[in-house]
């Protein structure tokens, strides 16, 4: 019997992770669509909007059937969605071009027939059945729902309101017909949502939910609905990334106290010790995810497939999918080498199942363009948590863009609240597992996980740069006695 790697991964995703981090195409717009549709419990027919904004295929300029200008104009006319005496076909052509740029700002709009369209907008009429990379957002919705988060009700109320300019601009192309939506992936069955977690990761998860409630207060007060939703989506992206970085501590024995912090880098150069230490914390997170998969796939082999170690040592090279099990696959030599090495190593390992689990993970990384680490990297880059964005630097660091920093601060400080900088740092650690430096325990924390690059002076500089950034954002004021006061207006 050949082991099918795809089935093993699906089992791990369904029972342990609660989403499928298996594509490097993930974007915040996908997380948003998944989050919103899970909360609403339905999608909407976005066919007319898609015909309106999808003018032609990028590849060859071909116009899909039904997307011709005359058809669009006729469709709007037939549905009484325009004033024919005042609007000509050429006006609609102009508007189509503009509207495409607005709702495709994140590059998530594809042909409706492919079920791969997510729109950069914030109203139920834009919620589609996109099947790509949606389940990360669906998982965050599930987490908020199960914990009765205030943010859940904020999203529900906001997303059902048509009062924003993008919705007003698109309103004649939107349908009011709701479509029943059943998630293809049931996030609610993941063990971490249903069983008690070890104390340390449980408290960080509780911290993330505390941040959600704090964020909800800001969102409810802000006059601009779209700004509020953008804040929520970035928060959801952070939660997905933090969740992946916690998997090892949720499940793997003896790892429950190992919370890997994200060191936020505010240093001026990528060669600065803090930048290098931040790269190390990112690398450690990636290694943690690999260790989790090795363990989880090993457990799959141990418990679900009833493989004995002796039987595994006789197994042929695992196949990627059931259909490819009998055919020759790409990278056969590399796959064979990985598998044979695992067989040899299993003789000397205390946990031979994890050795075979690691081999399955390595073969998957070889075969699939999208793997959990690539997923985390892309989502981190696109949501403004990681830098640099180019492919020349495979090692990323936690260097937040302004939008993401605002979200983290708003999740830590309530509207009208006033705290000092050490208190903000304590909340960052408690709610996000994020450190900045400048406190003795930060340096000890970094040394404890093996990130030695930044000494206390370098970390103190990082804290100063962070304080300057907060001041520039209008979130902090330096008082006459030298104390920095963090304050968000209420």
């Amino acid at each position: 019997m050949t082991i099918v790697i795809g089935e093993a991964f699906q089992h791990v995703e369904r029972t342990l992770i609660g989403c499928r981090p298996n594509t490097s195409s993930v974007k915040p717009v996908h997380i948003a669509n998944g989050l919103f549709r899970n909360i609403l419990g339905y999608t909407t027919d976005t066919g007319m909007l898609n015909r309106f904004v999808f003018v032609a295929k990028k590849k060859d300029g071909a116009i899909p059937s039904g997307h011709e200008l005359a058809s669009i104009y006729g469709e709007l006319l037939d549905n009484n969605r325009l004033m024919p005496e005042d609007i000509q076909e050429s006006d609609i052509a102009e508007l189509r071009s503009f509207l495409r740029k607005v709702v495709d700002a994140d590059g998530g709009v594809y042909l409706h027939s492919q079920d791969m369209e997510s729109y950069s907008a914030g109203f139920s009429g834009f919620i589609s059945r996109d099947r790509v990379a949606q389940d990360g957002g669906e998982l965050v919705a599930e987490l908020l729902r199960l914990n009765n988060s205030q943010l859940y009700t904020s999203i529900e109320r906001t997303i059902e309101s048509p009062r924003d300019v993008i919705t007003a601009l698109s309103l004649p192309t939107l349908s009011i017909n709701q479509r029943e939506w059943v998630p293809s992936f049931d996030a609610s069955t993941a063990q971490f949502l249903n069983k008690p977690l070890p104390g340390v990761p449980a408290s960080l998860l509780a911290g993330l939910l505390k941040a959600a409630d704090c964020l909800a207060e800001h969102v409810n007060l802000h006059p601009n609905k779209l700004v509020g939703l953008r804040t929520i989506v970035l928060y959801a992206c952070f939660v997905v990334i933090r969740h992946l970085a916690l998997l090892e501590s949720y499940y793997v024995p003896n790892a429950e106290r190992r919370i890997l912090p994200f060191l936020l880098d505010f240093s001026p150069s990528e060669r600065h010790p803090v930048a290098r230490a931040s790269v190390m914390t990112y690398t450690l997170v990636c290694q943690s995810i690999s260790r989790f998969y090795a363990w989880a796939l090993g457990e799959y082999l141990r418990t679900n497939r009833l493989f004995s170690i002796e039987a595994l040592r006789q197994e042929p090279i695992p196949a990627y999918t059931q259909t490819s099990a009998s055919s020759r696959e790409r990278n056969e030599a590399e796959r064979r080498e990985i598998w044979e090495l695992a067989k040899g190593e299993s003789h000397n390992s205390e946990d031979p199942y994890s050795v075979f689990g690691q081999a399955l993970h390595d073969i998957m990384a070889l075969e699939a363009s999208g793997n959990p680490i690539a997923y985390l990297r892309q989502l981190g880059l696109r949501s403004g948590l990681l830098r640099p964005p180019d492919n020349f630097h495979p090692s990323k660091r936690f260097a937040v863009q302004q939008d993401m920093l605002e979200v983290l601060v708003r999740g830590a400080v309530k509207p009208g609240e006033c705290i000092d900088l050490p208190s903000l740092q304590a909340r960052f650690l408690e709610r996000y597992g994020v450190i900045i430096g400048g406190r003795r325990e930060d340096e000890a924390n970094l040394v404890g996980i093996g990130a030695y690059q930044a000494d206390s002076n370098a970390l103190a500089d990082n804290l100063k740069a962070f304080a300057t950034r907060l001041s520039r954002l209008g979130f902090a004021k330096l008082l006459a006695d030298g104390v920095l006061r963090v304050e968000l207006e209420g």
Partner: protein
Amino acid sequence: MAWPTRLFWPEFAHRLLAKVQRGLPALSLECDATRRLWQFMEQLDEPSWDFDEITIKLLDPATKSQLAVTVDVESRQYLTISKGD
């Protein structure tokens, strides 16, 4: 007001002019100071929803073209679409 509105005008103006000198369109800038300006505008750009008709003015920063679209939000109908100001 819920969100801070303070702008650092000297820094913003300095950075903006430096970028403009290099030919970058002002609206595609991403520096901290510009984002502060966007935040300020985001608080102001919420239209009044007390009317059935709303006019939305669009500016494409890449092509500089403009479009004004009037929508009847009750009947979900485009009323007028006009180029320019």
